[in-house]
Structure formats: structure tokens, C-alpha cells
């Protein structure tokens, strides 16, 4: 028996490393479909998008940098198609990160296809919605928090007359009655650097604009505080939230699949801690006493 | 010339008053000098233990003042105080000191400051010829490339002591674990609590909160500098008092204290 304790006390860390690799790789390729409970904040986010009415204008902000893309893409690839599936909803893409436009294009190319007769950006069609008819991309606005504040003050002025690709958007904005920040009905912000807090201060506080927020795990605490205070309509936290959203909206994707790996690795950690304790009490502690 | 007195910006008066109060208290205690009592900080005392270990084993020491994400801020100056201490002990004991530098786009000035600082410690100990700038390499302005270079140095040089303080982000955990694997005695510090929680699990000692920032004064053993630490405790007591007062006031239906704090 004590030899077993000795083994437990001295498990090589590389065993855990290899086990993590194998378990994650296997479950990602062969998902089991473990049960998933949808949390109320994701449910609320889903309902806000589900209840969008024709004519509503949605501003989608990409506060995404390269390091966070892998974690947030699950939310992007389920929430954005869900928005586009709602009839008559107009969408404006925006980014406050200098690399953000890469991820807007990456998202659009994954959920849409080029419009007939075109082969490059921005002429893509998403769920039947066409560029410059149903949605536009105004691209990167420098200044981060200052950009968000400036947009709230003078939306048309800051956006200017051109989209990210140099096409004129004045007419589109006029046609859809977007004169100022007050005409935006919903903001969806995908955060790697906590842009939501600025949307709350500069958009929610003066205009009571509804804000949905998806973010990476690291910036979750700030969002939770604002959600609890009622300033965010719904929040989608990290891959876990993305998985729940994918489950609700039926845009199944990798986030949902990776939930199995999520659970399994967590239980592996618990077992690792348990084994470490057994080894400690069965072997190390006795050795210390001796 | 007409001197106009401009009004104070709204919502910032309380901060100004607090700052002035702290100035006065600090200068008062620094003039009085010598505190009756100061608690030991194990993480900082352990540096000498680690240096002793390195001398015994004849292996180098590795130390980092952090990645200085927002330039040379107070965290970084605190960390530089620790680095100066480590450099002095290394020079005195004839140990090789490795300092991986860089890590963010604002860290470039820090690179030169740290090199200058280490060099001057070697000079002060009378061994300027032992200083080798190639032991203080610049490992790019990207956090994780810097961390990878750091880890590479840990794997190859097998230092006996690893002191990583200053601004340390997610990469700190990576470095601390490899350092443990490489058999180094690790003393770490970080600027936010979730990182400290992870570092506490993997390092021998961590500095928590103000310990790193006050390290310069603590390690100098200079009574005048040590006396300035007293201010921190006085303001803490003041904060607790304001907190309790505010809660009592709130219980009586008045949010006056909250209002005062926001002016």
C-alpha cells in the first residue's frame, strides 16, 4: 500500500501534461455531449437578439486583438449570424482595435459568402443580407475610450462619409434614419480589453442604449459588475458562455464541442489535486514524521 | 501680471486633499526618523537567503524588474529598488547576474535604466569589470517573446535564484513554473491579485500588495526611508474609519460620506 502512496506522491508533472493533451485532443475530435446548463445572463442576451424588430439598428463592436481571438470567436460566430437572421435588422460593424478589421473580415468570411459577381471584401452576403443594403463596416476608429466617447457625441461626424473600404455610406445612413448615437437600438461588443465599460459610461448612461457584451475570461469581472448593476442587458462569458449561446441559437460550433473538454479537464485537475493529497498523507507526511 | 485662481476640477478635490495630507505625514515621519517597530517581510528577507544558496552552489542569479507596460510607473520603480539590492549582493558575492529585459512597447526606457542601475551597483562594490552588458539582453517588446527568452535562459543557465518582480502579467506563471522545474529558488511579485494567487501556488515566496512597492525603503535599512512606510498604515486606519463612518451614516439614511468621497 505504501508503495502506491509513494507513486501518488511522486507523479511526474509530464504525466499530467500528456494527459491534458490527449484528453483535450480526443474530446475535441469526438465530443461526448455532456449536459450543459444555460445560465440566465446568456439566456437574456439571446432573448434581446431574438426580440429584435425590423428596422432596428445594431452596432457590433470588435474590441478584439490577436491573443483573444481564439477565445472569443465562439461568441462571434454564433451571435452575429443570429443577429443577421432577424428580418429587417440593419447592422454596423466597428472596431476600436487597430487589428480588429482582420477579425471582422475573418468572421464575415466564415459566416457569409461573396455576393454574386464579387470576389472580395466588403461585398459579402450574410444570411441573405447584402453589403451596403443591410449592413456596413466602418472599420477601425482610433482612440479606444476616446473613440467610443466621440461616437456617442457626434456619431455621423466621427464616422464620416466613407466606410472602411472607401465607399460612400451617407445615403445608407440617411435611408435608415441614423442621425446620431440615439438612433442605435442595440450595441453588441466583443471585448478583449474591456470596451464595455466605456460603452456603459458614454452610451448607456446618457441614452439608455441596450448593450450586450461577450468577453474573454480575463475581463469578465468588470462585465459582471456592470451586468449586476443592470447596465448590460446580457453577458456571454468566454467559451462557456459562447457554448451556451451556440446551444440556444442553434448555430452549433466548436465552443459547444469544447465544453466536454472543459468539464473533463476540470475533473482531471480535481483528481490531480486529490491524488496529490493522498500521496501527501500516505507517504510524504509519514516520511516527515519519521 | 494678473494671477487668476482657477476653480478646482469637480470630483477631484478629495484626492488632492488626501495627496497633500500624505505628503505632510510622510515628511513629518521622515524628519522624525526611526520607527519603533517594523514587521519583517519574509519575501524580501528571503532574497539574502537565495543569494547565499547561489553562492554555495556557484550558480548565477536571474532577476527581472518586470515588463513596464505603462512606462516607468511606481510598480517598476519599486521593482528597480529590489533589482538594485540583488545586483549589489551579486557584485559583493561575485555572482553572475542575468536580467532579461523588454516585454512591452513601453519598456524600452526601462531597459536602459536597469542596465545603468546594475552597472552602477557593480561600480559601487568596486568590481566594475565584472559587469557584462550581454547578461542583460533585450528580448523584444512583446510580452510572450520576452517570456520565452526568459524561460530559455532559465533552462540553459540553471540559476539558483529567480527574483521576478515589477509588472508581471500572465507570463509570470509560465516563468515561475519553469524556474521551479529548473531548480531555482523563486521569489515573485505581481500587480494584480489573480496573478498573485497563481504565483503563490508555484513560487517559494511572493510579495503581496505594497510589499513590492515599499521594497526600496525596506531593503535600504535607512531609518528615514523606513519611516515613510508609517504613512501607509495611518492612511489605512483613516480609510477604515471613513468606511465605518460611511456605513453608519448610510444606516441612518444619509450618503454624505459617499458624496464627500466623490467631490
Amino acid at each position, binding site marked *: 500500500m505504501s508503495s502506491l502512496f509513494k507513486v501518488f506522491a511522486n507523479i511526474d508533472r*509530464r504525466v499530467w*501534461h500528456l494527459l491534458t493533451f490527449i484528453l*483535450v*485532443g480526443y474530446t*475535441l475530435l469526438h465530443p461526448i455531449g455532456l449536459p450543459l446548463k444555460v445560465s440566465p445572463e446568456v439566456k437574456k442576451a439571446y432573448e434581446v437578439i431574438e426580440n429584435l424588430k425590423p428596422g432596428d439598428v445594431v452596432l457590433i463592436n470588435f474590441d478584439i486583438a490577436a491573443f483573444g*481571438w*481564439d*477565445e472569443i470567436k465562439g461568441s462571434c460566430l454564433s451571435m452575429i449570424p443570429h443577429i443577421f437572421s432577424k428580418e429587417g435588422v440593419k447592422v454596423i460593424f466597428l472596431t476600436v482595435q487597430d487589428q480588429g478589421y482582420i477579425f471582422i473580415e475573418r468572421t464575415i468570411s466564415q459566416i457569409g459568402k461573396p455576393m454574386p459577381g464579387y470576389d472580395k471584401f466588403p461585398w459579402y452576403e450574410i444570411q441573405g443580407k447584402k453589403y451596403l443594403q443591410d449592413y456596413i463596416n466602418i472599420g477601425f476608429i482610433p482612440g479606444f475610450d476616446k473613440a467610443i466617447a466621440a461616437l456617442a457625441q457626434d456619431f455621423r461626424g466621427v464616422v464620416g462619409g466613407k466606410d472602411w473600404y472607401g465607399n460612400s455610406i451617407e445615403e445608407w445612413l440617411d435611408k435608415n434614419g441614423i442621425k446620431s448615437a440615439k438612433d442605435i437600438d442595440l450595441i453588441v461588443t466583443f471585448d478583449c480589453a474591456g470596451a464595455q465599460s466605456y460603452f456603459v459610461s458614454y452610451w448607456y448612461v446618457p441614452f439608455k442604449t441596450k448593450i450586450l457584451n461577450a468577453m*474573454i*475570461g480575463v475581463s*469578465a469581472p468588470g462585465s459582471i459588475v456592470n451586468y449586476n448593476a443592470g447596465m448590460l442587458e446580457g453577458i456571454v462569458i468566454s*467559451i462557456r458562455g459562447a457554448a451556451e449561446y451556440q446551444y440556444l441559437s442553434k448555430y452549433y460550433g466548436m465552443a459547444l464541442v*469544447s465544453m466536454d*473538454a*472543459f468539464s473533463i*479537464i476540470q475533473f482531471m*485537475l480535481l483528481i490531480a489535486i486529490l491524488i496529490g493529497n493522498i500521496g501527501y498523507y500516505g507517504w510524504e507526511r509519514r516520511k516527515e514524521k519519521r | 501680471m494678473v494671477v487668476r485662481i482657477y476653480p478646482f476640477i469637480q470630483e477631484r478635490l*478629495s*484626492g488632492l486633499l*488626501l495627496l497633500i495630507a500624505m505628503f505632510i505625514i510622510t515628511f513629518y515621519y521622515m524628519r522624525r526618523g526611526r*520607527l519603533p*517597530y517594523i*514587521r519583517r517581510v519574509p519575501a524580501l528577507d528571503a532574497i539574502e537567503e537565495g543569494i547565499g544558496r547561489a553562492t554555495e552552489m556557484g550558480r548565477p542569479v536571474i532577476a527581472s524588474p518586470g515588463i513596464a507596460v505603462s*512606462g*516607468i*510607473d*511606481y*510598480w517598476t*520603480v519599486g521593482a528597480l529598488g529590489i533589482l538594485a539590492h540583488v545586483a549589489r549582493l551579486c557584485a559583493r558575492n561575485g555572482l553572475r547576474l542575468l536580467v532579461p529585459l523588454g516585454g512591452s512597447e513601453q519598456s524600452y526606457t526601462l531597459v*536602459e*535604466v536597469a542596465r*545603468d542601475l546594475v552597472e552602477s551597483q557593480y561600480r559601487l562594490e568596486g568590481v566594475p569589470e565584472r559587469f557584462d552588458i550581454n547578461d542583460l539582453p*533585450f*528580448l*523584444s*517588446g*512583446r510580452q510572450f*517573446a*520576452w517570456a*520565452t527568452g526568459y*524561460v*530559455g535562459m532559465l*533552462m*540553459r543557465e540553471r540559476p539558483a535564484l529567480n527574483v521576478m518582480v515589477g509588472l508581471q502579467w500572465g507570463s509570470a506563471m509560465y516563468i515561475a513554473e519553469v524556474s521551479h522545474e529548473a531548480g531555482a529558488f523563486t521569489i515573485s511579485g505581481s500587480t494584480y*491579485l*489573480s496573478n498573485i*494567487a497563481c504565483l*503563490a*501556488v508555484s513560487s517559494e515566496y511572493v510579495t503581496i500588495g505594497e510589499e513590492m512597492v515599499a521594497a526600496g525603503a525596506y531593503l535600504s535599512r535607512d531609518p528615514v526611508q523606513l519611516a515613510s*512606510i508609517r504613512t501607509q498604515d495611518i492612511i*489605512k486606519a483613516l*480609510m*477604515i474609519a471613513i*468606511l465605518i463612518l460611511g*456605513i453608519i451614516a*448610510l*444606516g441612518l439614511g444619509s450618503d454624505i*460620506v*459617499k458624496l464627500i*468621497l466623490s467631490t
Partner: protein
Amino acid sequence: MDIGSFFVILLSTAVTFGLFSILTGVDNPFFAWAENTYVGGAVGMTIVVSFTWIVSNLIQKILSNPYVNWPLIISLILGLMMLLRVHPKYSYLARIPISIATGVGVAVSTRAAIFSGLLYQIRATILPIFDWRKPETAFTNLMIVVFVVTIMTFFVYTTELKGPLKISHRIGRLVLFASFGALFAQTYMGRLGLFLGAMETLLIPETNFRISITVALIMLITIIVLKRYYPETLNKLVP
């Protein structure tokens, strides 16, 4: 797939697994290769970023309107003083820009922290604890206040710990450790999310999966063989 993107995937997979190879605990040529290319590439990127910044935000502004932007010329001179660091005789001149940078850095970081790090934190802790209509909230608020006060006493350095202060200090320490556990678990979750995202990129679609498996196996087998049978060769291959 065109040849360019194939090579990007192949090389990025090789860098990824080269960096992962440190998990074997053996210093190996793959890690050394990945480390040096990564650091080299990162240095190249950061220099280009800084250079572009100097040109577009400094040189161009000065050249376009020197009469208005003359303060930037002083900035330029201070920057050039920094370059004197490499000159043994005049390197002391670099102390001037260093002092400016230190003064600005410390002052900027403390001035806002007085509010965000001190006063607003206290303001946020002033919570209603006498609200008997909502006992749950009142209890939670009371606990927050107790936690804050006890942990605050944990950070007392210049007063001897005696009597109630000692008890409070002890409680603060215990609370701090419990919160370390909670924060550790939360961080673990965040990192796990990023790891799963990275694994997904490596395993899906099929091409990536094949490249990843091949690269990973080649590296792992090479490392094991070298370590077990040819340790001297392995030692020669790493810096």
C-alpha cells in the same frame, strides 16, 4: 489551399509545438529554434512599430509645420540623447531623458490611482448593512465589509500585532488564502478557454490536424530518442 498559406500553417504549427516542447522538461533543439525565431521575429516587429511611430508622429509633424510643432523638436533632441547611452564618455547625458521618463511615469500612475485605487474603492465598499427587508443582501454586504477591514489589517507593517489587531490580522490572512483559491480556479478557467481555442486551430480542419500530428510526433520521438540514447548529441544541439 495556396502554397503561401500552407507554409504559414506548417511554420506556425512548428513554432507552436516547438514552444510546447518545453513541457517535456528537456532543453531541446526544437525549443531553441522556436524560441530564437519567435524572439527574432518579435524584435523585428517591435522595431518596425517604433520606427513607423517615430516617422509618422514625430518627423512628419516636425517637417510639415516646424513653427507650430517646435516642442516636438525638443522631444527629438531628448530622444537623441538616449542614443548616447552607447557612448562611454557622454552616456551620462541619457540621465536627463531617463529622469523625465521616470518623473512622468510615476506621476501619471499615481495621480489617477488616488481615485481609482483608493477613494473609489472605499466608496464602493460603503454598502447598506442595516437593510433588514433584504437579509441576504445585508448579509453579503456585511461580509464584504468584514473581509475588506480584516484584509486591510493584514497589510499593517508598522504597528505591533497585539490583541484584536492580531485576531483581525489572522482572519484577514485566512480570507486572503480562500480568495487565492477562488481566483486561481477562475484564472484556470480563463486560460483553459484560450488553450481550447488554440487546440481547435491546431486540430480543425483536417489539413491542420494532419500537419499538427506529424509535427508533434516527429518532435516528441526525436526528443525521446536523443535524450535516451544520444544525450551528448542533444547537448551539442542546444545553445
